[in-house]
């Protein structure tokens, strides 16, 4: 498989960008950061929105980040976009994923192992790319097709 070109969006308050970069480089992917105020004009195979507390979680987690030039210029439908933790919150706030996050129903912090399911999306590179992403998760990944 050819070397993937990866972009990692960072915001004020992002704190997992180095971890994400390190993980990508472990697989030999060509990785660079994308600053929140920069429009995405380069072509990437994969874009990560990593974890942290973008804009201090002010107003609500991901609420302000969704308005940033980087998020507004995401190449939707053309590139695989992965939101991790706060990145996932940003994708929900930006309506790029359905639904919204609420508080835990039992007023308690929940820490459990969860199964991660990848839904096959209609991107040209999708099956090999998804397999690459799942490679490190061994046994906790199921590839689901609609």
């Amino acid at each position, binding site marked *: 498989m050819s070397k993937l070109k990866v972009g990692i969006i960072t915001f004020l308050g992002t704190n997992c960008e180095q971890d994400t970069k390190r993980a990508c480089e472990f697989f030999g992917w060509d990785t660079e950061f994308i600053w929140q105020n920069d429009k995405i004009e380069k072509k990437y195979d994969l874009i990560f929105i990593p974890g942290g507390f973008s804009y201090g979680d002010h*107003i*609500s987690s991901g*609420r*302000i980040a969704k*308005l940033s030039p980087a998020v507004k210029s995401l190449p939707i439908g053309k590139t695989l976009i992965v939101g991790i933790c706060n990145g996932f919150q940003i994708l929900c*706030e930006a309506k790029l994923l359905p*639904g*919204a996050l*609420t*508080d*835990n*129903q039992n*007023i308690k912090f929940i820490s459990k192992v969860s199964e991660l399911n990848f839904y096959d999306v209609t991107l040209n590179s999708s099956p090999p790319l998804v397999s690459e992403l799942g490679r490190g998760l061994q046994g906790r990944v199921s590839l689901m097709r609609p």
Partner: protein
Amino acid sequence: MKNFYTKIIVNIKPTIKDIKGLTLKQAISNLVTVKDLKCSVGSFYALNFTAEDETEARNIVEKIAQEILSNEVIETYEIMLEEQKE
């Protein structure tokens, strides 16, 4: 141009469990006995700005409330808008 002052209150929709409200209720119950206590926790925002008229002002505030201050999937908002006379 006219000066406007607005208060925006954002609350969780009634169909969604208000966890912060329940947490507050629990905390109050640990402090003092209050009969039939119900709690709701929301957010309050206040803005000052200028606009041509009330229509423009209201459009601006609605956009801010919808796009930034609330998430329509789980939250509602109320706007109180008034012109500030010199």
